[in-house]
């Protein structure tokens, strides 16, 4: 084995052993579900991003690091085989980077959850809120309707 291949092996060993050191120590915590409560058939209900019933995530990591935030949003809530429409508005998201997050007056407001959001982590990370609107039909069958909202956070390396 020539020296070149030995170095290649060393290179991958370095990657394998040092990657955890380079990987950022980020975390995403769910603080609150998006809760519509009880609804009547035919009567839509909106939960504002500033409401206590809005969804809330906390993102932790290295202060000052830039991250991208992407939502995977459902179009329906489901209860068994029954569906109910859910709408996420293009200004229905907010982000706060302060150590004491202010949901009613966040650092970044009226954000579009359908687009990738890019922000720097604050000293306590970021807090993210999202609201939405559920629209039951006039003949919407009774039941508890649910759907997943997935938030993915990734360091940009900046």
């Amino acid at each position, binding site marked *: 084995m020539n020296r070149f291949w030995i170095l290649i092996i060393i*290179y991958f060993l*370095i990657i394998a052993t040092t990657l955890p050191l380079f*990987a950022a120590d980020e975390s*995403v915590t769910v603080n609150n579900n998006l*809760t519509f*409560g009880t609804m009547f058939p035919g009567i839509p209900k909106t939960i504002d991003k500033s409401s206590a019933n809005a969804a809330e995530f906390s993102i932790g990591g290295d202060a000052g690091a830039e991250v991208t935030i992407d939502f995977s949003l459902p179009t329906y809530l489901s209860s068994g085989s029954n569906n109910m429409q859910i709408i996420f508005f293009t200004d229905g998201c907010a982000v706060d980077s302060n150590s004491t997050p202010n949901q009613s007056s966040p650092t970044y407001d009226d954000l579009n959850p359908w687009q990738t959001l890019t922000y720097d982590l604050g000293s306590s990370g970021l807090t993210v809120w999202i609201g939405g609107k559920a629209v039951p039909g006039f003949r919407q069958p009774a039941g508890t309707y649910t759907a997943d909202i*997935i*938030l993915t956070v990734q360091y940009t390396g900046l």
Partner: protein
Amino acid sequence: MLKNNITSILLIVIVLFVVPVIQAQESATIQAVATVLSALTVTGTNDLNFGNVTPGTPKSVDKTDVGNAGEWTVSGSASAEVQIDFTLPDSLRTATAAMDIIFLVTDASFEDGTGGGQASPAGNLNPSITNTENLNAANGSMTIWIGGQVDPSVSQPGGSYSGDIEITITLTGN
């Protein structure tokens, strides 16, 4: 020797500049949750029945007149607030004749489980305006009755007269 040094330097450069580009990614999932309550159903369970009417002699049917007052049953979610609207005819008709019908502001009533039924209902409804009430707190039911008065003329042609009385129940969301 020079070649090996160059290779080493290149590898160090790769490690320094490529590895940091590898980024961590974290995801978290929450749920959107909503509980939909029962839909409303409204059923007409008895017609407003005046029976035989004599020309020139008005005839009234009281809302407490079991079997002759108009009656609807409503079913929905317990305690749900509803608006109650009547669409009332101003006459009953045959194919060729009309007979006046009158509804007074106290001609309708409802039972939501807090009263004594048709004879002593929970409250009166004014069939000429929008009324707001709550369905039965235990089972989401309500029964509504309506009476009225027909006023045949002295020359009222004989025949079977009829007209539609519609009720519209709307959830307020409260």
